[in-house]
């Protein structure tokens, strides 16, 4: 597992290439950590053109470091997924970036501003999708219209309602909506302000598979439109379907970061070749699956019964990664 991890180091490009800024932050969860909040590099981070730039982010709850030195660069227009088990620090991280939570250390720039100090015009450029349990007695149209009025250049509320799939339910009160419909209303409220950057914290938890696919389509449309999207999710398939890059968080640190297709060397590490032999199913691990298959076919003089060639799934990689941190 150690060697597996060391191969990640090269993938952590943002950590390696970044100007050395946030790493100097005290790693202990002591009150003194808070004093480092305004690292000198803050001004430098803010001038950067990235949508999100994070160096040495730390957040402690009592003696526990929920976020323990995270570096992150998310480019404009990118769809980025944060993966990780419960308690890995996903929500804490995203809430610091949203300006909801204060950090204990490190530097953060979101759309060029420090979220801890950013004002209304910054808020006008971000969208936050929150999942709320119950809502007041207002209708879908009233709520979306109301939220549109908070922004300087909102989308047309009627079109947003249509876009999230609530067309025809405009006059339905929020508490009369099904769980899935309510989630769509949450999304509508998050995107009606035409954000440059959209935060989605576990947006499809509780969705049925069909609703999840529809939601993915919506996110892809927003991404095509140039919206930068940061989402957290428990669903590996979701990260794979939507994200340009993913970061796996474990115990408050980034365990891996990269393209979901190649994360953990999925594309280059060994493949499994399996087939049905006369004496039962055979499996071999190989770095050269094509050669194995050719040899098999030659040996059998034609078809190979029950032939499969598999690479590790993102889930396999993920479980290895978070297992490694435990």
């Amino acid at each position, binding site marked *: 597992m150690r060697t597996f991890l060391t191969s990640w180091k090269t993938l952590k490009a943002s950590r390696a290439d970044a100007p050395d800024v946030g790493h100097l932050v005290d790693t202990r969860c002591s009150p003194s950590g808070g004093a480092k909040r305004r690292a000198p590099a803050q001004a430098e981070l803010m001038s950067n053109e990235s949508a999100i730039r994070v160096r040495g982010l730390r957040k402690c*709850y009592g003696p526990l470091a929920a976020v323990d030195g995270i570096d992150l660069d998310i480019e404009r227009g990118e769809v980025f997924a944060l993966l990780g088990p419960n308690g890995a620090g996903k929500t804490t991280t995203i809430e610091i970036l949203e300006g909801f939570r204060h950090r204990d250390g490190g530097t953060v720039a979101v759309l060029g501003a420090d979220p801890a100090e950013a004002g209304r015009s910054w808020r006008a*450029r971000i969208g936050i999708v929150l999942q709320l349990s119950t809502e007041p007695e207002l209708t879908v149209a009233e709520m979306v219209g109301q*939220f549109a009025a908070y922004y300087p250049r909102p989308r047309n509320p009627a079109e947003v309602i249509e876009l999230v799939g609530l067309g025809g339910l405009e006059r339905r009160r929020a508490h009369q909506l099904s769980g899935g419909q309510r989630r769509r209303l949450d999304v509508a409220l998050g995107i009606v*302000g035409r954000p440059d950057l959209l935060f989605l914290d576990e947006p499809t938890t509780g969705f049925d598979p069909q609703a999840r696919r529809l939601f993915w389509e919506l996110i892809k449309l927003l991404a095509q*439109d140039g919206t930068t999207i940061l989402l957290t999710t428990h669903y590996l398939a979701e990260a794979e379907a939507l994200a340009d890059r993913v970061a796996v968080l474990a115990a408050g640190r980034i365990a891996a970061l990269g393209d979901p297709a190649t994360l953990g060397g999925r594309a280059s590490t060994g493949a499994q070749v399996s087939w049905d032999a006369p004496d039962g199913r055979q499996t071999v691990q190989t770095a050269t699956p094509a050669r194995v298959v050719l040899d098999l076919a030659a040996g059998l003089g034609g078809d190979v019964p029950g032939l499969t060639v598999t690479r590790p799934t993102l889930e396999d990689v993920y479980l290895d990664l978070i297992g490694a941190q435990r």
Partner: protein
Amino acid sequence: MISTAIAPGAESTGPELALPGAWRTGLSRGRLEVVGFFRERQAVVFVFALPAILLVLLGSIFGHDAAGYGVSVGQLFTAGMIAGGIGSTSFQNLGLTISAERERGTLKRLRGTPMPPAAYFIGKIVLVFVCTVAEVVVLIAVGMAFYHLRLPTSAASWWTLAWVFALGTVACSLIGIAMSSLPSSAKNSFPVITLPFLVLQFISGVYVPFTNVPPWLQHIAAIFPLKWMSQGLRSVFLPARAAILEPAHSWQHGATALVLLAWIAAGLVLCLTTFRWRTSRDG
């Protein structure tokens, strides 16, 4: 469809766009606050209708006993219940709804938008103003219909009604907003918001004529706005000579205004220092 729904170039590189102003946003919030309030049956019954129901009930049970000096107990109850009604639609209304909004994340969601914080409070002011005026009108109507309540005839009495209403509503609203931070969850709002309000109504001359309240409880009641509000309203709706029934044998308008203004100042400071957009668990 998407091409029309989402204009190209979502990047805001152009000149800074004007953010919607607090007043316009606040007034449009206020409209929906009122709409939402009157759609929620529980709020309407508990916050809005209960004082009127209790007035009919208590007035029917005790209303025909004469209190002396040309005052019927029905009139006493009506004046007191108007004070209670103002407390209900301002203090209790805001204490319950804001703590519920905080718990279910409505406040957090608003905080994540560019909505000016003042707009939220302007919306609440509209809600309280509309509800409280309606409440007072309903209670006066009940009093006139059942208990020979007469509208004030002198300009001085109307003026008293206006300032007691205004100062009382503002004081109770600010205390309600401040207290909304206390319940750790909506389930706790009964002991924290409703129970103290209920107790105060009993000792402040709302449910029970103030003269029947034991002196030590009268002293406690005198700390809080409700006693002064109901006393001020008695001065509006009862004959002038009924002032002799008050513990001080006078309507004490000066003291009333001072106490209410002091609560407004204290409430404002509390709101500014303690208002939270999130629950304490949210960190």
